[in-house]
């Protein structure tokens, strides 16, 4: 027997594989494909305090070994989530991590408070890759000072394990991780999607109504692995690594680079059983290499 259990800032996961926000709905959508209680944790679609309509279509376009999305953070809002989606998740033996965001510090705080009070949410992941309405729409997670204010405020609003999800659209991601750590985050997760564009040369229009979108999938994996490694060198708190993980081998790259857990996103679309295959593939790897505990490989990169 190998031990796959890991600890993410106080949150004990039976194994290191979680779903990436926005790619797994609220769980029910995928429950017909496998037993979702087998997940390390579920991270639900990003929630704002009030519901959001999202962007006009087209919202998706495929690119080489990846995809651009501009969903525009459409979601049902915290209240409806608690009323309609959480009761189902509470019936499961499953760690629930609520991903949330806001367009102002107040909105972040209100969402965090409501999700903390609801009961049945085991951890919070705050998405800071969204623009701040009150500060000229600058993205919270791309400016250390703005990020400091919002993480500090949310930290005061919740006693749940707090994971700060970092944007890759920055010059020094290690620095941003350090800001999160200094503000009291229990963990960081990375990477969110990388901003990209794809143009139809005949119409000379973007293939997305929103013009730009977020790139995910295997195309971003080497960048994500490098960023996890940089963050691992910069902070002590645990890291959830993600970006283009399709297989157990991919997931293990992230863990060797320094991630204590991994998130699987786009892969769910290609193979709805991807997460299950990744968990069992990790187990096989440990057995083959005679490693008893997955924690032994975290950050074990030889340089």
């Amino acid at each position, binding site marked *: 027997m190998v031990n796959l259990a890991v600890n993410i800032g106080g949150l004990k996961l039976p194994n290191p594989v979680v779903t990436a926000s926005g790619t797994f*709905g609220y769980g029910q959508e995928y429950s017909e494909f496998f037993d979702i209680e087998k997940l390390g944790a579920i991270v639900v679609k990003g929630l704002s305090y009030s519901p959001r309509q999202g962007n006009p279509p087209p919202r*998706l376009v495929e690119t080489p070994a990846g995809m651009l999305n501009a969903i525009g953070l459409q979601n049902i809002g915290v209240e409806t989530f608690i009323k309609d989606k959480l009761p189902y998740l509470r019936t499961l033996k499953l760690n629930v991590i609520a991903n949330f965001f806001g367009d102002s510090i107040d909105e972040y705080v209100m969402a965090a408070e409501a999700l903390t009070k609801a009961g049945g949410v085991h951890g919070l992941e705050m998405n800071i890759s969204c623009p701040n309405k009150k500060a000229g729409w600058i993205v919270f997670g791309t400016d250390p000072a703005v990020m400091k204010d919002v993480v500090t405020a949310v930290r005061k609003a919740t006693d749940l394990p707090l994971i700060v999800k970092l944007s890759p659209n920055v010059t020094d991601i290690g620095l941003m991780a350090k800001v999160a750590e200094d503000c009291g985050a229990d963990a960081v997760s990375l990477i969110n999607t990388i901003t990209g564009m794809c143009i139809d040369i005949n119409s000379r229009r973007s293939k997305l109504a929103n013009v730009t979108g977020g790139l995910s*999938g295997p195309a971003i994996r080497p960048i994500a692995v490098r960023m996890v490694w940089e963050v691992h060198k910069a902070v002590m708190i645990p890291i959830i690594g993600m970006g283009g993980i399709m297989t157990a081998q991919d997931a293990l790259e992230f863990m060797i680079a320094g991630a204590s857990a991994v998130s699987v996103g786009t892969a769910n679309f290609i193979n709805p059983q991807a997460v299950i295959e990744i968990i069992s593939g990790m187990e096989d790897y440990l057995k083959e290499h005679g490693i008893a505990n997955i924690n032994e490989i975290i950050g074990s990169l030889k340089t």
Partner: protein
Amino acid sequence: MSRFFKAEITGVKLLNADFCILDIKPQGSHDTPLPGQFYMLQSISCYDPLLKRPFSIFRSTDDTLSFLFRIRGKATQILSRLNTGDVIDVIGPLGSSYPEPEGDFVAVAGGVGVASLYNLIEKYKGRAHFFYGAKTKEELVLVDNIRSLSKELTLVTQDCSCGVGGLVTDACADAICVTDSMLKGLHVYACGPNPMLKALNTRLAGKGVNCYVSLEENMACGVGACLGCVVKGINEYKRVCKEGPVFSMDEIQW
């Protein structure tokens, strides 16, 4: 029964340079699809193309699912070159279906939109007034089969190379809008490019017909999780893969 399964390719037939029929045999048990539903088909096991592509069910038997598609880009090209015996991953049947028609009904197909309506007219043989349009004669496929399954078939081409010249929506609306009483409660089913469905709405909205349209959007998950495939409904965005692909015409903001 899982809606995620492996299937063996049992037939790949090119109807001409642009249209292909793919037959697959699901391994293990699978759900029976309803007309209008669709499947996500994998084209290749490496990462380009990455995502599965949506295709309407064209025909189905106990052990075979068939798809009729137009070769457009990478994925459809690869699918048209698969060999019998190859195995692909499939998710389905997915989405909503065409509601059951009452009595005779009208079907309007534009181009490869004929794929999903074929399944409907085969299930309700001899009851469809079928309007089938395309840009040119070459793009009209399976005409003899469609004629034998329909009560009446009207062919329409934009370049006037076959049948009625012009747009299929006009041919259809001109034929059925003779009197308002004829339209009350009539079931109309339409599948084709968006501008065609929009034109149909312009001609038929508010006339008391029960019109059902099958819509397309780019998809990633196919199961309602990613919110990538939405179209504008009257009050909110609707997911083509979950609330659709078949919508009542008056649910959509045209």
